[in-house]
């Protein structure tokens, strides 16, 4: 206790910083724990389908064969693989959500 009081007099800033660092360690450790518990649930893991994704990425994150996604979207072999979902939707003149709706039945299969 004496040591602590002496440090408070001589190294006040370092002591305050040390206490703040301890609080930060606890904060980030708890956040990490909450993160692990939340994302351990497979239902949370997949994340939303977004416009920047490619059909291949959609297939990988949802664990479905890329060919099945290509078939559901009616993609020919001539479509470059880096075409995004948003670009496919724009080319067809449909909203992104309508395009995603075409894939949804695939996702519900076990």
């Amino acid at each position, binding site marked *: 206790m004496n*040591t602590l009081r002496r440090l408070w007099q001589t190294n006040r800033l*370092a002591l305050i910083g040390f206490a703040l660092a301890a609080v930060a360690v606890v904060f980030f450790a708890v956040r990490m724990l909450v993160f692990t518990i939340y994302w351990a649930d497979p239902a949370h893991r997949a*994340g939303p389908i977004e416009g920047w994704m490619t059909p291949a990425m959609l297939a990988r994150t949802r664990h479905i064969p890329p060919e099945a996604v290509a078939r559901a979207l009616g993609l020919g072999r001539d479509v470059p693989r880096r075409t995004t979902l948003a670009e496919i939707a724009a080319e067809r003149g449909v909203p992104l959500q309508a395009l995603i709706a075409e894939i949804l039945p695939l996702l519900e299969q076990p």
Partner: protein
Amino acid sequence: MTDQLLALLPAWGPWLLATTTFLSCLMLPIPASMLMLAGGALVATGDLALPAAAGGALLGAVVGDQVGFLAGRGAGRVLPRLRGRRARTMARARQKLRRNGAAAVFFSRWLFAPLGPSINVAAGALRYSHRAFTLAGVAGELVWVGLYVGLGYVFGANLEAATELASSALGLLAALAAFAVLGLWLLAAARRRGRTD
């Protein structure tokens, strides 16, 4: 802006990554880490090649660091010479940098990334060795790029999860580092006092 940049990523992969890491090293508010995460995800699906994506991001970051450093060096030459107390403070800062500069540069690339751009300019202005800066800088940027592209490879299709994981993990690491350094400092101070009593 994040959405627009993400939309361009599959088509412009390495070029876009290089541009964003370059700009983020100049302290511009660009979501470089998020783009690297998405880039890692595109590598995982085979839409981008790993050497191109990681190499682009690394190149942009290294060039950005060099620009900051050289700008600092140029500014250091132009600024008027300091006198008196301020000159002494400057000399002390320079001495400290010479001793701990490599660690400061290395860790400010990824662990304390927000400090990166200012450290580039400061290192240049204080005439820190260009070679040492480049070595520590490239090593640090390798960790930065590897960390985010790697996390993206594993988690990236879920950007929200990947971003959260990266910020939590780096936050925890930074807090632990501060905790350890300050703890050792206090321990040493307590011992020193104990001896003089």
